[in-house]
């Protein structure tokens, strides 16, 4: 187990370093970031000043090292547009996105677990087909459109929920439904598959033979074994939710990290964009690492591979 964890940790670190260099070099894609920052109509002298001020005249390796060693100690530099340290911006916006992500994953589990269990227990029944249809349609619906349609229905026509903003927890209901709906199909499929396998196993047959209540068998014995892989996928989906939050946050005007990303991308605010991409990638790397370790801990066969 220790060897497995060490190996995974080393891989995670390598991925982190590689991804950080990609997110840093995004700024240099068009050649000279100074020109992009200066914008249209800037003179050669303006560009030269910007180049000096931000240190773009140094070699790429030096600039990267400067940035990544700063980032490692929590200093992502100064935002060009907001004129304040990027770390402060991230800290201001993080609670909104964190709340959104937790609510979303909660909604996804609330949707996926019962439907997955129902679909497994009553295979090929109407419930099974309905949950499959729900997942298929969900994967095809653009999130921004679903968000707008929910706003029209629940916020404008029925007036049950607020349209946009992040003042109360009620503001998080619609965005979480949208994001959670997207995360649910993979979990639903995994719950269904895991439950079907668990229900087929010998210990369930024994439990049935002993005359246990079907409900106890399903919820206590089978679910316990089926739910663990779902937890690790939930960790990965959490990362996807963070990445997808840029669309939903912009529709609902939730001023979280996703909204910040959208604002800074439109304004060529490179330090902020780089920091957000780096932070999201690091969260993803950590979550998949934890999920791998969790899986290996549950299922020793994985440790060998």
């Amino acid at each position, binding site marked *: 187990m220790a060897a497995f964890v060490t190996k995974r940790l080393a891989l995670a670190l390598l991925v982190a370093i590689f991804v950080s260099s*990609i997110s840093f070099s995004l700024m240099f894609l068009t050649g000279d970031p100074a020109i992009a920052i200066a914008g249209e109509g800037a003179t050669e002298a303006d560009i030269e000043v910007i180049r000096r001020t931000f240190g773009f005249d140094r070699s790429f390796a030096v600039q990267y090292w400067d940035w990544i060693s700063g980032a490692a100690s929590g200093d992502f530099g100064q935002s060009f547009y907001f004129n304040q340290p990027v770390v402060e911006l991230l800290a201001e916006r993080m609670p909104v996105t964190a709340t959104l992500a937790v609510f979303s994953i909660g909604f996804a589990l609330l949707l996926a677990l019962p439907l997955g269990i129902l679909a497994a227990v009553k295979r090929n029944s109407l419930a099974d087909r309905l949950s499959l249809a729900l997942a298929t349609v969900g994967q095809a619906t*653009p999130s921004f459109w679903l968000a707008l349609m929910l706003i029209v229905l629940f916020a404008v026509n029925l007036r049950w929920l607020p349209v946009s903003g992040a003042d109360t927890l009620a503001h998080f209901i619609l965005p979480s439904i949208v994001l959670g709906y997207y995360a649910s199909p993979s979990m639903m499929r995994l719950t269904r598959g895991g439950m079907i396998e668990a229900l087929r196993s010998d210990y369930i047959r024994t439990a049935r033979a002993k005359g246990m209540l079907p409900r106890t068998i399903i919820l206590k014995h089978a679910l316990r074994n089926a739910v663990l892989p779902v937890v690790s996928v939930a960790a990965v989906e959490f990362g996807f939710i963070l990445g997808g939050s840029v669309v939903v946050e912009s529709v609902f005007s939730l001023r979280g990290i996703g909204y910040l990303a959208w604002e800074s991308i439109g304004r060529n605010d490179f330090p902020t964009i780089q920091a957000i991409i780096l932070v999201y990638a690091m969260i993803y790397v950590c979550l998949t690492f934890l999920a791998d370790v969790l899986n290996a801990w549950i299922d020793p066969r994985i440790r060998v591979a």
Partner: protein
Amino acid sequence: MTTAYTIQDVAGPSPRSLMWRRITGHVGLMIGLGGLAVVVAVALLAPWLAPHDPYAQDLSRRLVPPVWAEAGSWAHILGTDALGRDYLSRLLYGARVSLLIGFFAALGSGLIGTTLGLLAGYFGGRVDAVVSFLVSARLALPVVLVALAVVSLFGGSLTVVIVVLSLLLWDRFAVVVRSATKQVRANDYIKAARAVGCSTGRILVREVLPNLGSTLAVVGSLEVAHAILLESALSFLGLGVQPPTPSWGLMVAEGKGMIFFDARLVAIPGAAIALLVLCINLIGDGFQDVVAPQGAS
């Protein structure tokens, strides 16, 4: 009394006709194929089907309601948008953008992913380790954010969106092709090809690749759908296809401001995206069922 038996009676239906029967018997697959055929036809025939020029603005006829509304007329079946452009014509032309980007982005990412997957699955060892490292790194990057950032640097256009999505969506191709190649590699005919001295390139292209057809078709259709959804999201956020090009995602964005007065402007193009993606996903899922009926992925 003599009975004439043909080969078919003894051998049963040929594999080809069996496959055909499975395809035509799969309801989801047929619905998906039918739906996609309609959209492709619309995209190709848009100049003849569209009642108006999709770019022609008529400020005296702004926000004309659709034909089913009281004030609507058959002149503008889906009404007009805020600039007086015929909504049906824009919707028909919008199919072109979605299909073009979906197809070419899947093609580009398919080329990258298949190459990496073939190399990783065939050579194993270090090559495999490098490819799985690249896949992990790609998965760690948030697709929407990176795509937005890159498109904003280069300016939104069809080509930029296609290139960016090609560079971001190859991971599933690589993973699936890698494991399929591993299976194919174990076959005797690969050993035979190596024994007679075929070059590695020839073995990969002539012996391994033809066996991956169904795998590539399944992943390919899912990635077409994925790319269409991402394009619509990028265009919706203003960093994809630029106005006045009729893109469905952009049309939703343009209608967003009027959503409280005229939800039609948002509902119609969004529903078009959802239906197209649904059809393509049905094809992918259906094809998966047809080639692997046991449900083994």
